[in-house]
């Protein structure tokens, strides 16, 4: 009874057999923000074998209101989210293997990681990443737990390749995002409500209880006391490009070119070179300092202020240009610094 997983083993639908299964499993969590920190903590406490955490961002003060695992010190140091989460999680459970990846997840990166992954968890904040996860799930026959939320409103759906409709079946195309964290905010209980559902589904899948998988799509509003559970079978589309008979996995197709993206809810533009050769952070830091610019950072990134905009460069060559939504202005600042 003093075993650390005793209360989970006592839950008879898991039991010692289910716990042994959970210990063998490897879960990939894309996005270590509000959803990702909550589900990562649950899985690590539950004693999963290994988790891979991927996030391109670092911790900021405005994250702390809803993103577990992070402290004020993490925000002060601008620690990358995946690394900050890993440090905390290893203190919670050193038995779980934790792989932290600081970087932008594209198809190439994810396909290189996919071997031996048992479950894909949605911790993302945009539908481009979700459609990528969805295609990955279908191509490699791995369950994918979709979840999203803003304000007091959220939704969750369990996607089992070959069994349930996929995200493409449900949404048909990348939806216009009317509401973002930036425009309508979010409260932390909404996050917990999504991750409670994602977490229970994860434990079912990892422990081998596929027969109790939730078949319906849940949508709720905690502020307005609404909860609906909607059957989704009718939307399964045999002509779906992601899960249909002639699936082409469109979001896994090769990408080219410099990637520039306005980040949802951040007043920030991200710029990412096609080739991901490591940036020489130290020489750049010296050059900018000697040019009289305000420069800070840590082993993972460099922060520099130019024209009143704060720019953060990561080792993998990505840059975040804060304080703007203008792609061209961002490009200009980027090129001014990197050459």
């Amino acid at each position: 009874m003093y075993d650390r997983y005793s209360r989970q083993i006592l839950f008879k639908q898991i039991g010692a057999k289910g716990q042994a299964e959970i210990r063998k499993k490897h879960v990939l969590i894309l996005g270590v923000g509000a959803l990702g920190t909550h589900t990562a903590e649950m899985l690590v406490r539950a004693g999963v074998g290994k988790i891979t955490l991927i996030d391109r961002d670092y911790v900021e003060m405005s994250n702390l209101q809803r993103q577990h695992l992070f402290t004020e010190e993490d925000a002060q140091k601008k620690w990358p989210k995946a690394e900050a989460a890993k440090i905390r999680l290893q203190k919670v459970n050193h038995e779980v293997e934790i792989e932290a990846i600081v970087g932008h997840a594209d198809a190439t990166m994810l396909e290189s990681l996919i071997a031996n992954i048992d479950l894909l968890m949605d911790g993302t904040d945009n539908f481009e990443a979700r459609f990528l996860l969805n295609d990955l799930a279908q191509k490699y026959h791995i369950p994918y737990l979709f979840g999203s939320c803003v304000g007091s409103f959220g939704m969750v759906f369990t996607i089992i390749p070959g069994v349930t409709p996929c995200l493409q079946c449900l949404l048909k195309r990348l939806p216009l995002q009317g509401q973002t964290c930036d425009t309508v905010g979010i409260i932390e209980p909404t996050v917990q409500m999504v991750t409670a559902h994602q977490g229970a589904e994860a434990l079912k899948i990892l422990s081998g209880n596929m027969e109790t998988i939730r078949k319906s799509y849940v949508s709720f509003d905690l502020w307005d006391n609404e909860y609906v559970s909607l059957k989704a079978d009718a939307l399964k589309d045999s002509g779906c490009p992601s899960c249909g008979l002639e699936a082409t996995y469109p979001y896994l197709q090769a990408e080219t070119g410099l990637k520039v993206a306005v980040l949802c809810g951040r007043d920030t533009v991200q710029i990412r070179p096609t080739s991901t050769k490591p940036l020489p952070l130290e020489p750049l830091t010296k050059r900018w300092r000697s040019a009289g610019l305000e420069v800070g950072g840590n082993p993972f990134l460099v922060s520099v202020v130019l024209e009143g905009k704060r720019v953060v460069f990561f080792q993998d060559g990505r840059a975040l240009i804060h304080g703007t939504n203008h792609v061209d202005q961002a490009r200009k600042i980027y090129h001014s610094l990197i050459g």
Partner: protein
Amino acid sequence: MNKVLLFAHLKEIAGQSSLEIDAAGQTVQSVRDTLVASLGNLDGVMIAVNEEFATDEIVIQAGDEIALIPPVSGG
């Protein structure tokens, strides 16, 4: 008549959490096209009829409860 339950920002646009419309005999696609006038862009908004997602060609019956579920991107 048919009750239309609204979620997320659609409630704000409508100023209420549900609408009453008469959609008997219309398809889901037709209801969507009609509601665009009052609710704005409904691309990607999923439509459920009697707690079940419905494809565009499904025909609404009198008394069916309709729900509009917009996807949101946060996380």
